[in-house]
């Protein structure tokens, strides 16, 4: 299993790979597609362990890539480069034997010799075993290099083959054979990542296609989903027709003829044209559905919220420079504002002043009495100052255009400071935006049997602080809901969603202060304090207090858990809500501070829940 988490790679100021995540299971053959310079080779080199990234991490079979020694890696992954210059005239057999170098010290074992024979037969080069590599044609050399890479992992299950354009220079038969071999390797339990330029080969041989653009992951899905006119146009800027091959029923991609026009330049006004069309659609839709909120309209139009906001550039929206850390450090000047953070199913709105803002390499922190936030700046991509229906706000979005955080100006805010802030951070050059394809979370969970459950449970019980929980998830490579499922006895109990309402009522009725966390991938907003006025409206469950509002879609809650995390200050109890995808919707704790045990009343509330309402299975 290979898991790539938010990796980025820079050379100087040029970002070659930006915030890429995906994971691959043994048995999978993944094809990387993208235009020249999209970051495909760089990504492979990062996964190969050659480039070290500053951000993000690569987990390979349960271990961080950086924790492998050179020789350990050599028996678990092989690399075929784009360029294969060999400086000395080795024979073909000698060169393939190099793939066995990680396995012997001075002379090869009988097994090594066998593997080389088998691989040479499989790749169809056995008859040239004694020939000098330098006298072969380019395509033949490429086959020898492929054989070398295969020999390196021939008997290693769960190992990783990284192939950078393996079929370059091969004739059509060997292109097909090479991919057939790679696919067979995948089926034998290897993981294969292969950079290709030929989309038709990808269509026939890939289990999955990942498309890169400008160093970012743009699409990730089956060949059927990804090899469509729209993605192909976005990635390669070519118009293509997709037809179905009648005999294989696979898609065939047929690029249309391109006329060469020397006056033609890639024109930023194209983007503006698209935006103007969108603006018209938006205006019409809004007129027809005056009650709908922008987020709903975005969903209805199948477009991102940021793109809709951007249609207002010049009128209702001012683009902001992507210098969000410095911008946020100035937000305290605005005085009393309202902070809004939401995910798909829950909105948290808290009024107050931004204070104590700092940024660490891992997260940004706002640690005020009222406004308490954790910010993950690597996801922050677009910012706008928006003025609509008399409400002014700063709004921030991720690369797919999904809202991460908003700051609303109130009557008590400092107007002048707001204007100054806009003057300092306006980005006049930005006329239109282009968003990335929304990540379909491909967080394939490891099967439960693959988790070292005993160690995991011991580590859980040994936590000294509830913050260690996240590290625990990473270490054992488990998702949150999986972790709860595999929790040690008595540390995670499944509840009914109604229990959450019950807990809110008990806390409100007894004036028990709580902490409510509402997370998305770019921001976690924490409300600390009492809750009072609880109101249910349709599917929405709301807290409607003067300083704090919460809106929660009860019907979206798929799992409700009572979770206990040990800490040096005693056990910490929480109630956690998850959606169908296993994404966290909300987390509630009793009010507490580091070094102080949690409130006894809260403990009673949480532990009483299971008695109050029957638990579900």
């Amino acid at each position, binding site marked *: 299993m290979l898991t790539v988490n938010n990796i980025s790679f820079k050379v100087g100021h040029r970002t070659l790979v930006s915030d890429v995540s995906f994971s691959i299971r043994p048995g999978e053959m993944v094809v990387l597609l993208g235009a020249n310079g999209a970051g495909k080779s760089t990504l492979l080199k990062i996964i190969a362990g050659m480039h070290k990234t500053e951000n993000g991490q690569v987990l390979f079979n349960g271990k961080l890539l950086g924790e492998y020694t050179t020789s350990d890696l050599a028996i678990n992954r092989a690399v075929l480069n784009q360029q294969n210059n060999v400086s000395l005239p080795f024979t073909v057999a000698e060169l393939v034997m190099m793939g066995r170098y*990680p396995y012997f010290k001075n002379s090869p074992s009988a097994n090594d010799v066998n593997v080389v024979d088998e691989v040479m037969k499989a790749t169809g080069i056995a008859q040239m075993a004694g020939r000098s590599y330098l006298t072969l044609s380019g395509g033949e050399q490429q086959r020898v290099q492929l054989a070398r890479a295969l020999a390196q992992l021939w008997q290693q299950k769960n190992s990783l083959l990284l192939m950078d354009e393996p079929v370059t220079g091969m004739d059509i038969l060997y292109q097909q054979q090479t991919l057939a071999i790679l696919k067979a390797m995948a089926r034998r339990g290897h993981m294969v990542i292969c950079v290709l330029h030929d989309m038709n080969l990808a269509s026939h041989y890939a289990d999955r296609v990942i498309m890169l653009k400008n160093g970012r992951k743009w699409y990730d899905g089956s060949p059927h989903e990804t090899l469509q006119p729209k993605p192909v146009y976005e990635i390669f800027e070519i118009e293509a027709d997709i037809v179905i091959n009648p005999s294989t029923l696979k898609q065939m991609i047929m690029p249309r003829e391109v006329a060469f026009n020397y006056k033609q330049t890639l024109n930023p006004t194209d983007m503006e044209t698209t935006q103007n069309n969108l603006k018209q659609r938006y205006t019409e839709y809004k007129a027809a559905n005056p009650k709908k909120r922008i987020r709903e309209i975005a969903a209805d139009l199948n477009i991102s919220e940021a793109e809709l906001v951007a249609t207002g550039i010049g009128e209702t929206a001012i683009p902001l420079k992507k210098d969000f850390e410095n911008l946020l450090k100035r937000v305290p000047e605005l005085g009393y504002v309202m902070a809004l953070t939401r995910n798909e199913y829950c909105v948290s709105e808290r009024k107050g002043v931004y204070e104590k803002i700092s940024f660490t390499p891992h997260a940004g922190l706002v640690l005020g009495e009222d406004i308490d936030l954790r910010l993950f700046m690597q996801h922050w991509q677009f910012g706008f100052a928006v003025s609509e229906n008399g409400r002014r706000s700063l709004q921030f979005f991720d690369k797919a255009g999904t809202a991460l955080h908003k700051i609303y100006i109130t009557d008590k805010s400092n107007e002048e400071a707001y204007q100054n802030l806009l003057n300092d951070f306006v980005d006049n050059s930005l006329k239109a935006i282009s968003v990335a394809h929304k990540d379909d979370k491909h967080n394939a969970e490891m099967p439960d049997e693959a988790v070292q459950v005993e160690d995991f449970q011991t580590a859980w019980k040994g936590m000294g602080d509830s913050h260690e929980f996240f590290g625990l998830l990473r270490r054992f490579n488990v998702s949150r809901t999986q972790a709860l499922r595999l929790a040690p006895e008595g540390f995670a109990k499944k509840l009914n969603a109604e229990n959450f309402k019950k807990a809110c009522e008990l806390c409100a009725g007894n004036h028990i202060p709580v902490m409510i966390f509402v997370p998305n991938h770019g921001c976690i907003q924490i409300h600390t304090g009492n809750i009072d006025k609880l109101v249910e409206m349709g599917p929405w469950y709301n807290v409607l207090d003067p300083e704090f509002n919460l809106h929660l879609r009860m019907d979206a809650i798929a799992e409700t858990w009572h979770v206990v995390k040990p800490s040096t200050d005693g056990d910490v109890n929480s109630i956690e809500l998850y959606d169908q995808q296993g994404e966290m919707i909300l987390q509630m704790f009793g009010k507490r501070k580091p070094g102080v045990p949690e409130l006894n009343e809260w403990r009673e509330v949480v532990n009483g829940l299971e008695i109050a309402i029957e638990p579900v299975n």
Partner: protein
Amino acid sequence: MNKKLFYILVIAGIITAGILSIGLGAVHIPPAEVAGILANKITGSVGGANQQHEAIVTIVRLPRLLLGLLAGAALGISGASIQGIFRNPLAEPGLIGVSAGASLAAVAVIGLEGILFAGLSNLLGYYLLAFGAFAGAGVTALIIYNISKHEGRPNITTMLLAGIAINALAGALTGLITYLATEQQLRNITFWLLGSLGGATWQTIITLAPFVLLPAILLPFSGKALNAFSLGEAQAGYLGIDVDKVKKHVILLSTMAVGAAVSLTGIISFVGLLVPHIVRLLIGVDNAHVLPASALSGALMLTLADLIARTIIAPIELPIGVITALIGAPVFLYILIRDKRKLMI
């Protein structure tokens, strides 16, 4: 050629050339007598042999033979290793500055003797020269190595270019000192720059032996790594080779061997470049064999070259570097022309 056969032939060649080399010279000693004297020396028995001949063999010709063998082995194996590390068949130990540094230091010792080292006797003079040359070789190699270091690891292209620049600089300084030298110094400088095995004594052999034998024993263990290097440093790394360690290891050992040899013999050109090429043509390119075979072949080539240098216009002795270049250059050109396609340089 079969590898075993190759080793047998080269070793047989070394023994034959050795016996010939000990026998030939101003005083002719027949091969049978040479063998007898050597056998006596080894077994420790006395008598039977001509006392004068025995003295010539043990005091003059045997050390000279051994110096040739050691220096030849050092040049051969270092040449093969350096070509492997640089992934360049035209590389030779001179590229990492060893020869130029040694030359500069040696020429400086000779040229400035009167000014700086006044009063030094001839006995000390020879050792001063050797020590100076060794230090010069080491310091230059160290400077080039440090210039080429980027983020703690030597960059081979930078190293090659830095080597060219430092070689040119050292060459210019050597030229300057030569220009200012006296008649007698000039003869000494020329003699040193063209190489000679004339300085061989048991003392020098014992001093030199560890510097050559240690690399000759250790370097072949890097054969596999150097093979992987031919795929490029990145791919070598993917194959589990600790690229930086191998580079440091090979450069250190090569510098040590060549620096020590050159400091005692002067510059002997073409051995380090040519020997590995001939070896590869005969037994293939697998460095696990090329390295030890180059050591043996280098030893053989230098022994033969010295034999020719001493005997061809006896009693006058030609500088050995002249012989190696005179024979080596045409042979190298012949190989180049014949195997242009195969070498693909």
